[in-house]
């Protein structure tokens, strides 16, 4: 099975977010970018399927500027991806997920693919647009919010579940398909040191960017919430008193229920 997994470099979860001088975007100065969140699960899912289906190849692909994009691709290789391709774009360029999707689609069209895996949403913009857009651009079925993706070898099709508001759907579909993954069967593995060292010398294939129109989405403002000052603690002598005070606050001050 030919598996393509899309990975996006995103700021480490612990990053202290700061606003750039133009007030419109994240200040990326000194921020550490990593392979994280749902993309880590997407890589894990790709590797699990590779282990389950003999003869599979996992190809990691990323679009973004140097050096962060190359770094996440090496991280993907260290985890066990067989190949890595990098569509280099200048830093400070379009951050519109649909531009990313159009460019990724143009690249993936030229690669063998039975399955294209994306994260459900990227840890930074959280748009969740790329998987659906990629599927439409590639002319294949696409599904977001997927958990528990398996390959039914006897029937040559993928089976999976996905979370919808009214419950959980089960699906089957032959490839090629595009999946926006919420959760793999296992927790994402961590790379071993020898693999990390080896990944530093791995070949990263460069692919030229093509396929995006001039973006019409422009960032205007990036705001951080006023720091939460910590909880207002409820003083009480008995549990009943704590309950009464909290309920009064929720009704009268916070107005969260009548």
């Amino acid at each position, binding site marked *: 099975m030919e598996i393509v997994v899309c990975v996006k470099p995103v700021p480490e*979860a612990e990053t202290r977010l700061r606003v750039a001088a133009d007030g419109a975007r*994240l200040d990326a100065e000194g921020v550490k970018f990593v392979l994280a969140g*749902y993309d880590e699960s997407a890589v894990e899912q790709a590797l699990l399927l590779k282990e389950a289906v003999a003869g599979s190849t996992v190809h990691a692909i990323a679009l973004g500027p140097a050096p962060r994009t190359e770094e996440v691709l090496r991280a993907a290789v260290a985890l066990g991806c067989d190949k890595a391709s990098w569509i280099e774009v200048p830093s400070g360029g379009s951050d519109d997920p*649909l531009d990313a999707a*159009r460019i990724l689609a143009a690249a993936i069209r030229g690669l063998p693919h039975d399955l294209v895996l994306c994260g459900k949403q990227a*840890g*930074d*913009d*959280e748009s*969740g*647009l790329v998987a*659906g*857009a990629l*599927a*439409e651009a590639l*002319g294949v*079925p*696409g*599904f977001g*919010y997927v*958990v528990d993706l398996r390959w039914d070898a006897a029937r040559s099709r993928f089976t999976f579940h996905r*979370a*919808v*508001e*009214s*419950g*959980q*759907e*089960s*699906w*089957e*579909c032959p490839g090629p398909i595009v999946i*926006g993954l919420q*959760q793999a069967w296992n*927790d994402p593995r961590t790379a071993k040191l020898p693999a990390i060292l080896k990944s530093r010398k791995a070949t990263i294939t460069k692919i030229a960017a093509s396929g995006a*129109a001039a*973006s*019409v*989405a*422009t960032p*205007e*403002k990036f*705001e*951080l919430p006023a720091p*939460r000052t*910590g*909880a*207002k*603690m*409820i003083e*009480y002598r008995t*549990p*009943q008193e*704590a*309950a009464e005070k*909290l*309920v009064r606050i*929720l009704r009268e001050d*916070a107005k*969260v229920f009548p």
Partner: protein
Amino acid sequence: MSRRTLVVGEVRQGHLADVSLEAAGRAIELTEPTAVVGFVAGSGAEAAAGEFARVGIADVRWTDAGSGSDASAGRIAPTVAALAREIEADLVIVGGTTFGRDLAGALAIRWDAVSATGVTDVRREAGAIHVRRPVFGGRATETRRLAGPRVVLALRPHAFAVPSVTPTTVRTSGFAFVEPAPSWREAKLLALEPAAAGGGPALADASIVVSGGRGVRAPENFRLVEELAASLGAAVGASRAVTDAGWRPGTFQVGQTGKAVSPQLYIAVGISGAIQHLVGMVSSRVIVAINSDPSAPIFRVADYGIVGDLFQIVPALTAEIRRVRGP
């Protein structure tokens, strides 16, 4: 000249979902009501189409989504694009659910549009749409300018109220289903397992969420959390400690590798507040934490805190809520 806005509705249990009415309300505020067209697809679409009347939309189209009965987003995106072209829409609005987000991506490609999801605020100014949306797990908010000519918005569930307007009379008419890519023919929806009452996938959609963590100590004690949730009509969530231990299924998990929620009220019971949990709930409007450890990190993001034993506090709280709200 004002162009038209298309609202794509979602049918749940035979009715138009609340998120769709919220989307309709937003559409009416951005355009005149007469320039808004509603649309629904799938089984039950024709009946649900009439419910757009509740929010003052008079012109509604529906399709039964062809031979297959499922109206998943990718399958109906070509139909939505065709309708948007036919009515000369410049804006499509949808509730930002699983369906809505999947639709936004596919439709943006099919209709050659720009798109934003998770939208919590939107205004039209100088010929462009400006949206506000939380990013980085609610740790920041961005504002983006989306210059047309075609824009698709998926609204964050419950960020907007269902409008109360005078109902109108609806004119519903069928719209021809446009076949998606041939490979969709083999995509089969096998089953829909309904959300467990009070818990499960309804989480992402709930306006109040009560979540329990390892502090509840044993699976049978989790009913304390569930009773509190029931008293509030809330959905039930859990930390990963709980889902990993198998006390509740994975669908209950809130956080980085679970669901992201942003209800009006989030109550964390016996949850320490690890960063991976926080990213899934920190954008909730009001956060309450109940924890025996005064230094638990959850108190740093909570608005209100009770330091105490959950086995005493939670039953008292459930009783008090039942008392004030009535049984």
